[in-house]
């Protein structure tokens, strides 16, 4: 069992045990899952890296830390995490939103990145889920339950996050008119984005493998890949589709407007919001039971509901 540090205890005291409360991170996904109820008290999660263990490939970090700053520190050891980088976005925010990086194909989803979580329960006490190791099946999986929960079950103060190696060579390339399925089949493809016409690919790995993939993609029938600084501008709304739906998104989704689809994953960034997805009544009831068990008075992030995430 862990003795929680003073920083976490101070955070718990700020959260307290009464009244509606939320944590404000970078506010980059502030409206996700609905607007906060008026009168909700805002607190800020602590920030800073507690321990980075490059040989363990884990980093213990406080929730208020900016993901970009975290990744700058990890880069010195050639590592990063699967958390998405957004200007001003925090580790806690990324975990609670649960939305994966545009490079999920290579980095994996956020839900698989959280190894241990320390959070403030609805009654103000500090709880811990998961373990301090890269592998663990001891008890029920509170980590996965909390990822994407929008802070409605507990308020995260600290996380142990899995790190992954940065590729020896990493390049964003644009492939005009390319077949996104063919690009997806490249072994080093850590992201394949398609706007219905062109493909952008993030290739990451050993130089020899990246070169081989590039030469394959520059076949006689295709325009040669050109290096670009990064992904295209992503439209503001996020659709969650199956990989098959994303790969054929161009037809039959006129309501989406301009789009950029993550091939092989299923996330589609579109200029128009995704229509509400139907929710099975049984699943809705289960979600409600979780909320009632973990937050009986409904004080954590009132107004927000992960079922209302697009």
């Amino acid at each position, binding site marked *: 069992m862990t003795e929680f540090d003073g920083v976490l205890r101070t955070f718990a005291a700020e959260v307290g045990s009464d009244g509606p409360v939320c944590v404000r991170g970078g506010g980059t996904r502030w409206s996700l899952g609905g607007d906060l109820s008026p009168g909700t008290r805002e607190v800020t999660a602590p920030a800073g890296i507690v321990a980075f263990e*490059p*040989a*363990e490939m884990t980093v213990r970090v406080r929730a208020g830390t900016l993901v970009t700053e975290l990744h700058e520190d990890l880069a010195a050891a*050639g590592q990063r995490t699967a958390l998405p980088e957004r200007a001003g976005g925090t580790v806690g925010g990324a975990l609670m939103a*649960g939305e*994966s990086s545009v490079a999920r194909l290579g980095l994996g989803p956020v*839900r698989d990145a959280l190894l241990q979580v320390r959070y403030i*329960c609805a009654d103000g*006490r*500090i*709880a*811990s*889920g998961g373990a*301090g*190791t*890269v*592998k*663990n*099946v*001891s*008890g*029920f*999986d*509170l*980590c*996965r*339950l909390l*990822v*994407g*929960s929008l802070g409605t079950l*507990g308020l995260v103060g600290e996380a142990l996050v899995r790190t992954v*190696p940065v590729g020896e060579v990493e390049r964003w390339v644009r492939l005009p008119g390319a077949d996104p399925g063919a690009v997806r089949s490249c*072994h*080093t493809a850590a992201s394949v984005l398609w706007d219905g016409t062109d493909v952008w690919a993030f290739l990451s*790995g050993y130089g*020899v*493998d990246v070169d*081989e993939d590039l030469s394959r993609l520059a076949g006689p029938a295709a325009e040669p890949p050109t290096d670009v600084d990064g992904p295209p501008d992503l439209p503001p709304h996020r659709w*969650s*589709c*199956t*990989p*098959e739906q*994303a790969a054929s998104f161009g037809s039959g989704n006129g309501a989406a407007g301009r789009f950029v689809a993550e091939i092989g*994953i*299923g*996330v589609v960034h579109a200029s128009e919001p995704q229509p509400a*997805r139907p*929710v*099975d009544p*049984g*699943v809705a009831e*289960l*979600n409600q*039971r*979780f909320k009632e*068990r*973990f937050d009986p008075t409904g004080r954590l992030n009132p107004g927000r509901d*992960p*079922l209302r995430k697009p």
Partner: protein
Amino acid sequence: MTPQASAGDAALVADLEAAIGADRVRADAAARYLASRDASIYREGNAGPVCYPGSTADVVACVQVATRHGRAVSPRGAGTGLAGGAAPLGQPVVLSTTRMDKLLEIDLDNGVAWVQPGIVNLDLTRALAPHGVHYAPDPSSQAACTIGGNVANNSGGPHCLAYGVTSAHVLAVEVVLSDASVVTLGDLTAEPTGYDLRGAFVGSEGMCGIATTVAVRLTPNPPAVRTMLLCFDDVSDAAATVSAIIAAGIVPAAIEMMDQRCVTAVERFAQAGYPEDAAAVLLVEVDGAAGGVAIAGERIADIARRHQAMSVRTAADDDERARLWKGRKSAFGAVANVMPDYYLHDTVVPRTRLVEVLDSIYEIVDRHDLLVLNVFHAGDGNLHPILAYDSRVPGADERVHAAGREIIELALDMGGALTGEHGIGVEKREYMSRMFSAVDLDQQSRLRASFDPHCRMNPGKVLPSAHSCSDIGALRASDAAGVWG
């Protein structure tokens, strides 16, 4: 012990037979005896009637009948679990999923296969082979264990170092809950809406419901694979090599370690080609694109030589690769040549502390006058010390348990975890309070109760008794004699 028939079972059995057919229900002593234990050393399980449903509707009907009779329900796959998770407590109705063993659909466009829970892990991977994909989690018991059991235990295996354990490979799961309702948790979209209930369900050891259909992720077969055997004359050098490989930013598909006693046993059992004079061997596999595999292989060989490796051998072809793996996967069977009984441990430590933890394990085992064979997933710090012993020797059981307790304490003191892939079950239930605080366990209990408010599903597992009062009530309601009664 032989399960004792309960006087009230006749009506229960009749109702179960009426619900799913007489050929799908067994209440004889032999069937109940077999369903009362798993592959652990726990022997106190006590099954009620055993049902063999063929469909989700059958499972629903069984749960309804059990509830009507005030009986709990314990699901069961192949019974290969090593922590007593499938050992039924309190004479519940046991639902064996072995007749729900179909591969329902392969959906390559979405990289998923829909399966019934009773399908055997290796059968699934064999069926997928013609499509160039596989199911990544590969527990040592994969020739017998079922996907439903893997879901219940969040099972791992050697190749989970790079690919992740079961939870990373389950996209959706149809579940029959304790109120007999059917829900599908998760879906095939990139980011399912609501709480990650499929994540919460996987690894819940049958205590949150019964998986009746599972959508598993298909992993493309890697274009290139290199399997290497690194041999050392010092265990510490082998352990230090593991840390150095990870520190170099290389994530192999697998890093398995065996110490000399294990190598000797395996070699005599499986003739895998391991050198018996090595104090420890590492079986390392890298996969991916060919160029990177070659580079990673060379770097790993360099690291091993810098750590005084006696030899570095690369499998020349698929046959040699298969032989090297056969040795690793035969380890538990090979113990039979050493001692008649063994107790297989499963703990995790930070992988940077392997050297000191192995030293301590040898010290503990020596002190208790036992034999230990170490064979484990070194890459992720998942230890599997095998305590080999002869249970006929007076006091041997006690010494094994005492050493086992110390190994658990050691792992936790080093910042480790109780279990990396076998689960808590009954075996480590009371140790949960050593790893988790009362608040932590209360939160876990809430998770379980959200799925199963009346604690009717596989009661008495995972959560220590102080945190599972409802379970004790459920057990006593179903069995006046009580397991702990």
